[in-house]
């Protein structure tokens, strides 16, 4: 029995991590129509800031804050300097953000060095859950993901700012004639998505490896989840759970490689079914 519980908890914690990463990517994809290949690098910046904050003795919550702020600042700078000109065409957004990710990785390598960083686990050890010893930190992650999604969804659907953001996403020209400065709003939304990536980076740091090109490991799964979720932020959660379930179960029962290929096949089927990405006119 406890194998099943362990499996469920594993799936939930994997889904929690994946959905937090996919949340930032989904926001830029769904609300701003751009594909942000530098999303992983904002995670890395968050993780680095948290590690350096920890190194100078700051407690974990301040480290978390440092990570989020660092990623937000870099995100805002990136938006003002390059991303602002990418909204017009999706293909430019791919190339522009790809260049941005090179600059961020190489920039960190040249300044902070290339080695692995030690990121300590703020909640070490395990506790009894339904009779199964399960790492505390992963339970914290599940909680954090749930709270984060609640906040974002509430903000988008229940606050005036959220309404304005969705309005600009739906029809930028009309929103502009109603007095909404779409360029300023885009800056806010992109900075927020970078901050979310930073937060994800801080949360993932203790589980994995903090190094300049750590972003690449997570981007693949986040991408698949955003594709499967289509054009809705809410559907990121079921999509994350689906991908984690397939990956965990297949790895456990069949073979890790088959699991990875299975997730890709799901993404291809969804893309074929979807026929066109959200908000894009086909001919």
């Amino acid at each position, binding site marked *: 029995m406890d194998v099943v519980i362990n499996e469920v908890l594993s799936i939930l914690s994997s889904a929690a991590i994946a959905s937090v990463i996919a949340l930032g990517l989904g926001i830029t994809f769904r609300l701003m129509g751009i594909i942000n290949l530098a999303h992983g690098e904002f995670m890395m910046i968050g993780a680095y800031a948290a590690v350096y904050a920890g190194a100078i003795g700051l407690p974990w919550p301040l480290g978390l804050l440092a990570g989020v702020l660092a990623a937000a600042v870099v995100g805002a700078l990136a938006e003002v*300097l390059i991303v602002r000109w990418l909204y017009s065409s999706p293909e430019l957004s791919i*190339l522009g953000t790809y260049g941005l990710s090179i600059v961020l990785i190489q920039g960190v390598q040249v300044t902070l060095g290339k080695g692995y960083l030690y990121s300590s686990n703020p909640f070490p050890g395990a506790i009894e859950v339904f009779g199964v010893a399960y790492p505390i930190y992963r339970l914290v992650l599940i909680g954090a993901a749930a709270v984060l999604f609640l906040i974002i969804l509430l903000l988008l659907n229940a606050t005036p700012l959220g309404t304005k953001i969705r309005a600009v996403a739906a029809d930028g020209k009309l929103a502009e004639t109603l007095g909404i400065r779409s360029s300023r709003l885009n800056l806010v939304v992109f900075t927020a998505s970078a901050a979310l990536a930073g937060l994800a980076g801080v949360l993932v740091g203790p589980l994995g490896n903090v190094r300049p090109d750590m972003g690449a490991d997570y981007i693949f799964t986040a991408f698949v989840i955003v594709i499967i979720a289509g054009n809705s932020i809410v559907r990121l959660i079921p999509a994350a759970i689906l991908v984690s379930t397939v990956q965990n179960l297949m790895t456990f029962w069949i073979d890790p*490689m088959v699991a990875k290929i299975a997730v890709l096949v799901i993404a291809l089927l969804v893309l074929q079914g979807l026929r066109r990405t959200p908000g894009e006119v086909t001919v």
Partner: protein
Amino acid sequence: MRRLHWLLLLLPLLCLFVSNYYSGLVGQYAILGATAALLAFSWGYAGVLHFFHVVAFGLGAYSVGWFALNLGPDGLWLGLLVAVLLTGGVAFLLGIAGLGKNYSFMTFALVTFVVVLALEQIAVQFTAVTGGFNGLSNIPRLGFGDWRLSGSMNALVLATVAVLLVIGLRWLSTTPYGVALRAVRDAPRRMGSFGVDVPAMRISVFVLTSAATGLLGGLFATQTQFVSPSDIGLAFGTSILVWTMLGSKTTLLGPFLAAIGINFATTGLSESLVDYWLLIMGVVFVVVVRFLPEGFGVWLVRILPSRWRRAPHVEVRRAAPEAPRDAAVGGAAPEFVVEQLSVAYGSNRVLQDVGLHVSPGEVLCLIGPNGAGKSTVLNALSAVIRVESGRWRFGDRQFQGRSPWRIARDGLSRKYQHPSIATDLTVGQNLALAVWGPRYRFRRLLWQRWEIEIEPSAWRILEAGGLDARLDQLAAELSHGQRQMLELAMALANPCDVLLLDEPAAGMTKVEAATLASLITEIARDARPAVIVVEHDLELIRTVADRVVVLQNGGVLAEGTYAEVEADVRVQEAYLGTEAQHG
């Protein structure tokens, strides 16, 4: 253009004068340059962005490697053949799935992105064929039996193949097929209505470029004698995308030279500033995306002497005027008849049992307040939208249920409201595509020469619009009125029995509208097509209309000569809101 090609052929010769090391690099980087040019042909010319080029390159390299290592050195020729067939086949399947009717630019790019990720994993895992992480090594060079080329000779052959491929692509881009690709990129719907098979064009260019990339991948493997998963992964694929973009995707030479230049710079300089090199490349790339999204190549083309850049001249001749058709058929002249035409969008009924009849040479004007269904009638008759019910024929030729290009081929042609001609092409090229569209399958465009015959009525419109002297001018440089004239001429380029005109005078000045009116009357009199005009400009309607039909809420409100309709009270009410006042 010839001089440029001879200059390119200089590149392979370099292999003879430099050390074995550098000739090897020339060979490799020429192949990568040609791969970038192929991607530019698909992405910049046909508007199809994809990551499949890296899969094709990898499949080619692996197939040459596997066959050469398992069937002996000469196995590599079979490997090259398999490379081309395999990549072409996989590209065909992907094309059928993704480039069909509801092609979406972003979705297709994402699909091929995911395919690359999958294949990179499989290459590492599928050790039996791909040699896994270590890949395949000691792949033999080109040659027969024991006679194998040396490093530099092998590179010479590769560089020559690459240059010839680029020259071939440049030739292909000036053929009607290449020009039609650019038209499909700019105005897919319009080209479709001319009868150009848009999906087939896209699939053919995707398969062609992928198969060629597969060949290049195979040749590349004979030069490096090695292939491994990390060499054909996503990083490799994205760097080709980067070179193509920097070199500018709307040219072929740009990406070719950009790929070679950047690679040489990378090997030459990277030792001394190893840490900073990638950072510099990243910054340069971001700056280019921001300030010069169309890449360096476009500058290169602009400073090239214009004589080298001129689009091919189109020889346009007037067809001999045919005997008037209606006299030919005994008894009643064939009429264009529309019966019980009904169209509904979901629950909202837009047209209800509309009936029309127009005899050859007669001009019928459709008018009514907007939202009355005028454009819907034209869309239904030209099969741009599906009808709920209704039949329409000219003489005994039925049109309902046929696809748009078959209708165009059977003599029912249409001019759209907003001129959607291919602005990147010259006037002559646009006309040529209008003439060939309904007649030829796209393969015929490959060896078609640039000379066409257009109907006298179309020639008359060109003269009226002053376009007969501007056949080699880019359509982008025409005024709004001239674009409308060109669109009209394209609709009349082939013989047509029924002509549908959707607001031909929209956006025209008074003078242009007046000349258009006299032209329509003249064409109706000479070529005697049955003409239906949807228009708001009352002066135009007054001068051209033999009969007027007033539509309201999807039904025929009134019919008759212009004077009768003008006097009809119900029409005034429909046009001017609630109470109509007399006088």
